C-alpha cells in the first residue's frame, strides 16, 4: 500500500496578465474596466468586415519590461499568429496570439518559501495576445449575452516550466510574479477584476520516475487561496485515481470554489484544431537592441532585489523581507516608517506587518488609503523607542490614531499616557501590592513562578499601564527575591 508520500506533483502555471495600457492591443478603444456592455468595443474589437489591427507600441514595451525582469531573452523577431476557433466571446473567429515565435523566451523567477528556501523557477515563454469578451448568463431568458468590452485587451501569457512541486511553491511563484508585474507597472494586479488569471497544469508521478504523468489543466482559479486549494484537490484526485487503478485523462477542468473541487469541462472536449498560422494582417514584430536598452534604463528595483536589500540593510529575517517586498507600496511604507522613526527597523517591520496590515484588512482598506501615514506610524514607534510609552499603550494610541487621525504625540499628551519612569514612586506602589497580597507572595516564594505575571498585572492596573515595563520587571524581581 502506497501513501501520498510516494507521489510527487509536477505543476506548471500559465498566467494571463492583463497589460495596463490605456488602449487595446490592436485598436484605439479604451481598456477601462467596468463600462456598460459593448460601450468600449470598436469596429476592430467587434471583428467588423474590412477593419484591420494595428499594434499598440506600449504593449511591446511592457513585454520587454517583463522579459528584462525575469532575465529572459527578448526575441529580435516574433510573429503574431491566428488561433482559429468559434466561440461567442471571440468575435473574429480567431484570437491573435503568438505561437511559434513568442516575444519573451527562457526566463527565471526567483522565489522564496516561508521556511527561507530559495528556488529559481524557469519561465518557458511569455507571449502577447488579445483577450476575449465575456459571456453573461444571468438576465437573459434562455439566451447568453455577449459583452465584448474586454475583447482586444492586451494580455501577456506567462508560461512556467513544470518545475513546481507543491501548491505552496505554486502560490509562492504566483505571488512573486504578481509582485513583479505590479513593480514593473505593467499590470494593475487586480485579481477580482481578472487582471491576473491563472491556469494550473498538474500531473503526478511516483517519486524518482523521470517520466511525466498525464496532466490536466485547471482553469478559472482567480485567487491565490483558490490556486492552492485547486491544486491540492487535483493532486489528491489524481493520486486517488491512479492508486485505484484508473487513468488520468488529459483534459481541461474547471475549479468550483464553492464546492472546492475541480470538474471536467466536457463542452471543451471536442477535439479542437486551432489551425494556427501567421496573421497576414500583421507583419513580424521586430525589437531592436536600442529599444531594449531604452526600456532597461528605467527598470525599477525588483521584488527579490528589494527583499535581499531589506535583509541586508535592515537586518530583517527572510520571511519579513519577503512579506515587506511582496508589494511595492508596502515596501515603500515600511521604508518611510523607518525613515520617520527612531525605532529599530525590526520594530517598524513588526508593526507594519502586524498591527497595520491587520487594521487595514479588518477595515478592508488598501495601503494607499491607510488613515495612518508611514510618517505618523514612525512617530508613534519613536515614542516606544524612547520609552515615552510602552508597546502596550502604543496599541491603544494606534487605535486612537486610526479613528481620530491625530498624531501619536497629541494623543499621548491629551490622554495622559506618558510612561511613568519615576523609580521611587514605582517602588512604593510595588511595596504596597506585595503587602496587600501576602498569600500570593508566599506561594511565589515557594516556587510558583508564574505568579510573577500576576504581580506585573497588578502594577499595570494601578499605574493604568503607564509604568515602564522594564522598570517594573527589575524592581519586582529585586523585591520578590529579597527575603
Amino acid at each position, binding site marked *: 500500500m502506497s501513501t501520498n508520500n510516494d507521489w510527487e506533483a509536477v505543476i506548471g502555471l500559465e498566467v494571463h496578465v492583463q497589460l495596463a495600457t490605456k488602449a487595446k492591443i490592436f485598436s484605439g478603444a479604451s481598456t477601462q474596466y467596468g463600462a456598460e456592455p459593448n460601450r468600449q468595443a470598436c*469596429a476592430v474589437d*467587434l*471583428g*467588423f*468586415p*474590412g*477593419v*484591420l*489591427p*494595428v*499594434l499598440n507600441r506600449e504593449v511591446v514595451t511592457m513585454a520587454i519590461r517583463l522579459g528584462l525582469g525575469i532575465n529572459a531573452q527578448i526575441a529580435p523577431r516574433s510573429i503574431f499568429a*491566428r488561433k*482559429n476557433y*468559434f466561440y*461567442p466571446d471571440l*468575435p*473574429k*473567429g*480567431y484570437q491573435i496570439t503568438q505561437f511559434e515565435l513568442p516575444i519573451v523566451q527562457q526566463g527565471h523567477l526567483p522565489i522564496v518559501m516561508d521556511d527561507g528556501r530559495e528556488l529559481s523557477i524557469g519561465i518557458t515563454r511569455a507571449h502577447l495576445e488579445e483577450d476575449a469578451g465575456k459571456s453573461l448568463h444571468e438576465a437573459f431568458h434562455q439566451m447568453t449575452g*455577449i459583452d465584448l468590452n474586454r475583447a482586444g485587451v492586451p494580455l501577456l501569457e506567462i508560461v512556467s516550466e513544470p518545475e513546481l512541486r507543491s501548491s505552496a511553491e505554486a502560490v509562492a511563484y504566483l505571488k512573486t510574479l504578481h509582485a513583479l508585474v505590479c513593480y514593473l507597472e505593467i499590470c494593475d494586479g487586480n485579481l477580482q477584476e481578472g487582471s491576473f488569471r491563472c491556469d494550473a497544469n498538474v500531473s503526478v508521478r511516483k517519486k524518482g520516475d523521470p517520466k511525466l504523468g498525464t496532466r490536466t489543466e485547471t482553469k478559472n482559479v482567480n485567487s491565490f487561496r483558490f490556486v492552492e486549494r485547486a491544486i491540492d484537490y487535483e493532486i489528491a484526485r489524481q493520486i486517488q485515481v491512479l492508486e485505484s487503478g484508473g487513468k488520468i485523462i488529459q483534459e481541461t477542468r474547471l475549479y468550483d470554489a464553492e464546492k472546492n473541487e475541480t470538474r471536467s469541462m466536457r463542452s471543451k472536449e471536442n477535439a479542437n*484544431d486551432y*489551425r*494556427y*498560422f501567421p496573421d*497576414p*494582417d*500583421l*507583419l513580424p514584430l521586430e525589437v531592436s537592441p536600442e529599444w531594449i536598452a531604452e526600456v532597461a534604463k528605467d527598470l525599477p528595483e525588483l521584488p527579490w532585489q528589494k527583499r535581499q536589500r531589506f535583509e541586508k540593510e535592515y537586518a530583517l529575517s527572510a520571511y519579513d523581507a519577503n512579506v515587506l517586498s511582496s508589494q511595492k507600496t508596502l515596501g515603500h511604507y515600511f521604508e518611510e516608517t523607518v525613515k520617520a522613526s527612531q525605532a529599530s527597523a525590526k520594530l517598524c517591520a513588526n508593526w507594519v506587518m502586524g498591527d497595520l496590515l491587520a487594521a487595514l484588512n479588518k477595515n478592508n482598506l488598501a495601503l494607499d488609503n491607510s488613515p495612518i501615514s508611514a510618517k505618523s506610524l514612525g512617530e508613534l514607534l519613536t515614542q516606544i523607542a524612547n520609552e515615552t510609552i510602552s508597546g502596550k499603550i502604543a496599541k491603544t494610541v494606534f487605535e486612537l490614531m486610526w479613528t481620530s487621525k491625530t498624531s501619536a504625540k497629541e494623543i499621548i499628551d491629551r490622554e495622559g499616557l506618558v510612561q511613568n519612569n519615576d523609580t521611587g514612586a514605582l517602588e512604593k506602589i510595588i511595596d504596597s501590592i506585595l503587602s496587600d497580597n501576602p498569600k500570593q507572595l508566599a506561594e511565589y516564594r515557594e516556587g510558583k513562578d508564574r505568579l510573577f505575571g500576576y504581580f506585573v498585572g497588578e502594577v499595570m492596573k494601578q499605574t493604568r499601564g503607564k509604568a515602564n515595563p522594564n522598570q517594573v520587571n527589575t524592581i519586582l524581581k529585586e523585591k520578590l527575591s529579597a527575603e
Partner: protein
Amino acid sequence: MPYKTLTDLKNALEQKSISSRELMTQALTRIETLNPKLNAFISVNAEMAFKAADKADQLRAQKNHAELPPLLGLPIAHKDLFCTDGIKTSCGSKMLDNFIAPYDATVVRKCAEAGLISLGKTNMDEFAMGSSTENSYYGPTRNPWNTDYVPGGSSGGSAAAVAAGLVPVSTGSDTGGSIRQPAALCGITGLKPSYGRISRYGMVAFASSLDQGGPFARSAEDIAWLMNAMAGFDPRDSTSLDVPVPDYTADLEKSIQGLRIGLPKEYFNHSLAPSMQKIIDEALKTLEKLGAQLVEISLPHSDLAISSYYVIAPAECSSNLSRYDGVRFGYRCENPQDLNDLYSRSRGEGFGAEVKRRILIGTYVLSAGYYDAYYLQAQKVRHLIKDDFDQAFRKVDVIAAPSTPTPAFKIGEKAADPVTMYQCDIYTLALNLAGLPGLSMPVGFIEGLPVGLQLMGNYLEESRILNMAHQYQKNTDWHLQHPKDL
C-alpha cells in the same frame, strides 16, 4: 459622352463646357437604361451623387481649378467590397445583404477627397471569389461586348460599368487577377498596384496577404489619375507602405526607347490559343516599334503558382470569413436550436457554394497533420515564385504576358467546374503571390471579344508600366473601342 475618358471629362469640367450635375444626370440615366441588361450595379445612389455634384459645381464656380481637388465632380463606382458609410456593402453575398458599414474604406475616403463622386456599388463574385461574377447573390453581371458572355471577375461589375460607359472609372480589388482579368475580358485598362501601395482598410478581406485594391479606367492616363487619388500610407493598415507617393502622371510621356520587356516563356506555351498568341504578338511588335527591346526570360516556377495560390488564398479566407457567424451583423438563420446550429446554419445558408468550398479547402490545409504538406509547402513555393520575379527584374524593366488564356466565355460555361474556372487566372496569380504591380490593357479582339495584354512591373514601379501602357495607347486605338449595340 458615355465613352469619354476621365481626362476628357476632367478637361470639360475645367473648361465649364459641362457641369458635374449634368455628368451625373447622364451617367445615372445610362445606368437606369442599361443596368437591367448588364446587372453591373448592386446599388445606385442618385440622391447622394446629385448632392455632391451640386456642391462640386458650386465649389468650381467659386475657385479657380488649381485650388480644387484634382478630380472634383467626376463620377466613379466602387466595387461592393469597399465599405461605404451609410450605403449597403454586400460583397455580393447573402451574408451581407443587410450590412451597412458604419465607416468608409480608406479608398472610398481618398477618392472622395480627390473630388470623385460615387454613383453606387458594383456587382462582384461573392467575397471576391470567382473569375466570372457568376458567384454573386445578386445574379451574374453581363459582358457589355456580348451579354451572353461573362465580364470576368471577381470585379466584373466594375469592369462592365466602365466598358459600357456607365462610369468613366471604378474601383476593384485583385487577389489573384480580379482586376486584370475582367479588365481584359471587358476591353478596358485595369491596374493591380504593388501590395501595400493602397490601403486595405475598409476593404472586406478575402486573402489578406494577396488582396490589393486598384482602379479600372478607359486609359492608362486615367489610371494614373486614379492612382494619385487612391495610393498612400494609411496608419490603420499595418501592411500599408509608408513611402512617398509619386505623381503617377509625371512619367506618362517619357519615351520607352531602350526599355527591356521580358517575355516569360512559361506564359507563351501551348495553353495559349494561337488566336490569342497572334494578337499578343502584334501588341508586342508595336511596343518594339516604340523602342522597347523584347527579351525572352524564364519564370521557372510559374506552373506552381496556381497550386500555391489555391492553398494560401483559401487558408487566409477560411480564417478571414470566420467573423460571419450571425452574431454581430449579417445573416442569421431562423430559430437556431443551439450555438452550433446558429453558426453552422447561418454560414451554411449565408454563403454561396464557391465561398464554402474555399473555406473548406482553407480549413483543411491549415488543420493538424496537413499544415506542413500544404500551407507551409505553398509558402515555400511562394518564395520560389517571388525569387523568379526578382531574378527576372534584374534583366528586364517590364514583363509582358497575356492577361488571360482566352477571351470571355459564355455565362454558365464554366460555372459547374471550379478547376476549369480557376485556370482563367493562370497568368495573373503569380503576381499576387509576389506582391508586384500589373496592368491589363486591351490590344485586340477575337470574334468581337476583347483581348488584354498584361504588363508586370517590379515592386512600386507602377509609373513604369503606366508609362509603357500610355505610350502604347497613344499609338493605337484599341482602348478607344467600345461596344456598338448596347
